[in-house]
């Protein structure tokens, strides 16, 4: 119900104290809901001796580490109600997150994503250039995250043009045709951060102007970190090569699809009314602004699986709002990549 109400408004205008009230109520509701409907979640809550009927601060509610969604099939709906299963990208099957959606949760994801995207793309659907393969050519029974994201974002565009062939090669002819038809007014470009870099910056020798494009990209910086490419340099390269000035990064994860975070003009991710971020130190104490730590994400959306309150494996930092000139309400933050892999000790594998 609350989602229905909130999607009618701009997700970045609601006051902090109103948001706090909504979250206080909803997190309590969601925790109870998953306790009643997901047996694994219930077992955890019981074992850590968390009492459901006591009122507490948001930060005192238990969070699930994201890896649990890889190792268990966590869901708060019956088998019959499964409408869609999202599977994260990755190689080994044990490393894939499995997210179960019913119709309601799936619809809410789309609605919320729509409400957030409207603030960047406007109300009209624009012609859309997708720097990836066409998901239609893939079996989509269990959508992998990349294809699911493409499908999810496709609804914000029209005249879709997929520019990579099935071998991942860029088809410049297609791009030229697209630009001829739509290049003179605004159009939407979507893709994954590293794939865009690889195909548009590293591999593509052809030059054309993408002046009127609005590029939205996400999916993480791991590969680009190895190449020493940060967000600034990334933007610079796209601007220099294609005159593409409107480049927007988004952050989000399959465990909380829908309530994603869009980068503002000042280069910070901003939480919408649907989500909240907390930064934790190694003892899970909540850190103040401008301190780096583990990222915890709370979303109002997950009802069909217990993913409303998760501990990610990312390192992040909340930035003072005074550092940002944008008018949006919401928390500003930066992501500093994955927590560093620790040296493995003990008597196991020889490498």
């Amino acid at each position: 119900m609350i989602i229905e109400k909130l999607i009618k408004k701009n997700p970045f205008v609601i006051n902090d104290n109103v948001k706090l009230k909504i979250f206080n109520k909803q997190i309590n509701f969601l925790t109870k809901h998953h306790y009643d409907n997901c047996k694994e979640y219930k077992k955890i809550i019981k074992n850590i001796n968390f009492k459901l009927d006591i009122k507490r601060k948001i930060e005192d509610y238990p969070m699930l580490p994201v890896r649990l969604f890889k190792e268990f099939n966590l869901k708060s709906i019956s088998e019959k109600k499964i409408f869609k299963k999202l599977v994260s990208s990755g190689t080994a099957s044990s490393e894939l997150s499995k997210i179960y959606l019913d119709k309601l949760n799936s619809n809410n994801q789309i609605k919320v994503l729509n409400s957030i995207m409207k603030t960047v793309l406007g109300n009209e659907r624009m012609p859309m250039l997708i720097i990836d393969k066409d998901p239609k050519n893939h079996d989509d029974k269990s959508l992998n995250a990349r294809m699911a994201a493409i499908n999810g974002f496709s609804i914000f565009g029209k005249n879709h043009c997929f520019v990579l062939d099935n071998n991942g090669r860029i088809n410049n002819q297609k791009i030229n045709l697209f630009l001829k038809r739509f290049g003179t007014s605004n159009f939407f470009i979507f893709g994954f951060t590293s794939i865009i870099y690889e195909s548009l910056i590293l591999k593509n020798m052809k030059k054309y102007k993408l002046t009127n494009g609005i590029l939205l990209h996400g999916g993480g910086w791991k590969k680009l970190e190895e190449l020493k490419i940060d967000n600034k340099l990334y933007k610079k390269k796209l601007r220099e090569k294609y005159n593409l000035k409107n480049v927007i990064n988004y952050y989000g994860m399959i465990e909380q699809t829908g309530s994603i975070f869009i980068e503002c003009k000042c280069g910070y991710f901003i939480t919408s009314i649907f989500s909240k971020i907390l930064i934790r130190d190694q003892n899970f104490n909540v850190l103040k602004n401008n301190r780096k730590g583990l990222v915890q994400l709370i979303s109002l959306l997950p009802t069909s699986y217990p993913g409303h309150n998760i501990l990610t494996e990312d390192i992040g930092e909340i930035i003072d709002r005074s550092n940002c000139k944008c008018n949006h309400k919401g928390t500003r933050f930066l992501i500093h990549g994955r927590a560093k892999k620790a040296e493995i000790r003990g008597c196991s594998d020889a490498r």
Partner: protein
Amino acid sequence: MQDKKKFYKILDNKNFQVKVFKPFNKLCIEFLEDFSKELKTYKNLKSHPDLIYLMFWSSKEKIKKLEKDHKDNKHRLGRGLIFHICPSNVPTNFVYSLFFGLLSGNSNIIKISSENSKEKSIIINILNNIFKKPKYKVLKNSNILTEYKTQNTENTEIFSSFCDGRVIWGGNKTINEIRKFWIPERSIDITFADRYSMSVIDLKKLKNLSLNNLKILSKKFYYDAYSMNQAACNSPHFVFWSGKKDKKIQNKFWKELNNIVQDKFTFDDTHIVDKYTNLMKNIIIHDNFNKIDMYQNNLYVIDVNNKINIIDDIRGKNGTFFQKNIKNLSEIKKFISKKCQTLTYFGFEKKELEFFLLNNNLKGVDRAVAIGNALNINPIWDGFDIINELSRIITIE
């Protein structure tokens, strides 16, 4: 099956020759002694406790003692060429494996992990310096340290086909991978499979400790459990409290341990995420947990109830312990399986442990040591004597 040309090409030493010696022969003992002396001169030794331990371990006195322990009135010679597959995550392990090979009178190929560590490079430097001495020429030409990725199976295949024995330092996955490669019919494999360890503490004796001694004991426990991130086969996961239940003193012990961890241990962020995830996993998979005490993220203590029977698949991570009260030592009988390697103890007499371990038809526990000594290195490991296994007995009648 054996391709000599390839073998020498990979070894990259034309003068390589397989030699066998008597165990504890003079040359090898001197080699270890020189190693120990040179390590002692390393200026930053203080900041590497594992190197200090290694320095003492290879000293003349220690080796003499080891030799005495191995006297059994039998004629022995080394088996020949031993191929050692060493783990990537215990930086000093490979040098002990080499020493076991040398002391048992063998020539050795030591596969060192390609992971880099400060300890590894210090040790290799010293070994190379000593091998250069003219008196060790014969050892230089019968011992090879080699680094290659485990995926490079060609080397493993060749080395296996020439060796008289393999020492495979686990875990299970590695053992199964290496065992796919043929070894000559008379050759042997010594394998160190995945194991785990547990502790037993006598509550009455614990209660009688002064605060200071309690602190010392928790520090020793800390050393056993945390220095290898609780991932070594000899780090404890279960703590059995023996005697009349006394939560107060048990909690005091954990509190002291927590203080030490807080004080001394630095977690990586991934350790914390792993630890928290592991706790949640354990909760989902297992029943029979009574209560979980979280000393922030330094230490998790999980009380298990009386219904628990099998503990083989319950493991802590980065400082997560399961505890159970028992009336007496013999109650842990039912929890001991093949997978159990070390029992660390406090408050028991050796005689008591000896009687318990030998007279109960147990399939597990090859080693009982006082708390604090879990990580000590001994050629008797996982239930067999590596030095004896790597030599052959000659009978003359």
